[in-house]
């Protein structure tokens, strides 16, 4: 393998890591805090993607000259829309199903089917085309033979921003303190006066919002259609479960491990075989460490 291919391959691993991390963050905090397995996470991503599409359409119609700056606005809008949807969902639906993990799985899966069919009825069964702003098309070429896709750099940047924001939220604000307290010991947090129901609602909404941001960013390199969510959900679950459900650091480390394995295995084997090998590794790892590779050690 030549040097430039090796460099690009290393970059791929890094890029895939940020993609997986961005996908999994929202699911991880919801899973970690409430033990709710949100099967509709993928559809929330699709909702973010469709919000991006709508923003692009509005810009194309009303202000075609500003089309180059629509993406940052779309990302924020995607967060807002999915945040609001998540909040409504938690208040009207999910909160009645706490402590019934199997039922929540079934219910959110049903919800994902309903959302898929709604997207299909609203936007048609075919994928919609989301335009890339001109500054994200093409690649950056630091030297001959090496080309780094700009859209991937954008996603790396976005993941860093989102990761830092989430870190600050969890570790440097009052809200973060409450969320961490409830994650660690729900009963005791309630006893010292934290409104755990509110914490649940807000956390679920934040998790949903993060899904929206991911969905919005992924329109730059993947498809936007009614079943878009299904393309991500399996990977997202693997990352979260492999990392251990209660630690964000674990999610990052697991995303990194899986991304590296996947990009190198894909290079050496075929895509299908790479996927199968990763699943095999995950199964073996979970056999020996059922709580995930990087599970936080918590006293129960």
């Amino acid at each position, binding site marked *: 393998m030549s040097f430039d291919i090796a460099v690009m391959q290393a970059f*791929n691993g890094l890029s*895939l890591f940020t*993609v997986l991390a961005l996908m999994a963050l929202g699911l991880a905090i919801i899973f970690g805090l409430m033990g709710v397995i949100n099967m509709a996470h993928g559809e929330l991503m699709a909702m973010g993607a469709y919000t991006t599409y709508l923003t692009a359409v509005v810009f194309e119609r009303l202000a075609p000259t500003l089309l180059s700056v629509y993406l940052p606005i779309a990302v924020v809008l995607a967060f807002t829309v999915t945040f609001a949807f998540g909040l409504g969902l938690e208040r009207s639906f999910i909160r009645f199903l706490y402590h019934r993990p199997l039922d929540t799985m079934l219910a959110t899966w049903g919800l994902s089917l309903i959302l898929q069919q709604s997207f299909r009825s609203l936007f048609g069964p075919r994928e919609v*085309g989301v335009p890339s702003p001109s500054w994200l098309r093409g690649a950056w070429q630091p030297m001959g033979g090496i080309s780094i896709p700009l859209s991937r750099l954008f996603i790396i940047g976005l993941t860093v921003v989102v990761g830092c924001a989430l870190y600050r939220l969890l570790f440097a604000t009052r809200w973060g303190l409450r969320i961490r307290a409830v994650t660690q010991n729900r009963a005791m947090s309630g006893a010292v006066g934290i409104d755990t129901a509110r914490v649940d609602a807000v956390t679920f909404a934040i998790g949903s919002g993060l899904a929206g941001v991911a969905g919005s960013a992924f329109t730059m*390199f993947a498809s936007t259609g009614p*079943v878009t969510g*299904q393309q991500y959900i399996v990977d997202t679950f693997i990352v979260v479960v492999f990392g251990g459900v209660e630690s964000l650091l674990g999610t990052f480390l697991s995303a990194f491990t899986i991304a590296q394995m996947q*990009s190198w295995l894909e290079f050496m084997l075929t*895509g*299908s075989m790479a996927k199968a090998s990763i699943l095999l590794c995950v199964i073996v790892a979970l056999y020996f460490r059922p709580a995930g590779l990087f599970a936080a050690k918590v006293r129960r």
Partner: protein
Amino acid sequence: MMLSRRTFLKGTTAAAVATVSTAPFMWPRGGWAQGTVKIGILHSLTGTIAIAEASVVDAEKLAIEEINASGGVMGRKIETIVEDGASDWPTFAEKARKLLDRDKVAAIMGCYTSASRKATLPVVERSKGLLYYPTYYEGLEQSPNIMYTAQEATQSVIAAVNWLAQHKGKSFYLIGSDYIWPRTTNKIAKPTIEKAGGKVLGEDYIPLGNVEFASVINKIKAQKPEVILSTVVGGSNVAFYKQLQAAEINGKNQALLALAVSEEEASGIGTENLEGFLSCMGYFQSLKGGSNDKFVKAFKAKYGGNRVVGDTLECGYISVYLWKMAAEKAKSFDVPAVVAASSELEIDAPEGKVKFHKLNHHLWKHARIGSFRKDGQIDMIYESPLIEPNPFPKI
């Protein structure tokens, strides 16, 4: 004599049972019901495959509407019954059974994926029904009760490979989604490439629905093939072309021929990402000719000016006409008579004159290669003579 409620019920139930049980013998398929004949349409309107299939229903309905407007088939109007296969193979079988046994349709226009066809096949054979299948597929099948109106694998891939080897280069990279159609197609492609003096540098399969192509693209860059032959399908295509574009591989610096991207997929992929890449199909919307103009115009008039048509839509459209012509030639709606009349039946289709093979239920077809324009339409650059269908090629 007073008729008690019980005896009344007994009597009517017995009569009803008698009617229902003898019904199949009293009414031949197609039903005598006052001047109509029933046609079933069986595609996925919901679920993952609706993306490709839902619009085929539109084309088939258009054909039926046109036929009814011009007086129907042998004086009978067509009554359409649409069923949703819901992207679920057992549902396809169940709905086919319903259409054939309960509705007694004269023929079904339906199925898209091979999996749905394979699920429907035993039902159609057992009920001695008739299915028109309008999707390009991998071949290796021939049922007495199915008419195949799109290309089978040899009719596109052999022509495409020979043309590519002659005009674009001899080193190939094969990439496809991981299921039966791409693998069978490549099984035919590989010896054809070798026969044409070329060689295969790499062969790659990615899971259905996969959206991560960066490593595959690096592999392609490392191998530097002159030609990429793609059998990637569905949503993966959007990701594939977007990421090729981002890696600076485009229609200007790389020859790539897709066997499963038609005009219909172009807007979702982003037409700027496809420009200059090649497609091989039996039909393009941009084809010149009276019957194609008529078809495209009628389709847009009914469904809206921004709709586009592709290969599968056209095949769905001509399926209905092929059935009508066969029935009229046979002067009967009986399945064996219609099938017999289909042998060597010729139609002036939007894709040009095509005709059924004498024996194997497939159409003689042109393979056409075209290049994507900036607006998502395809300019034809090569047209093969009519190719004999050969669903069981010896390789």
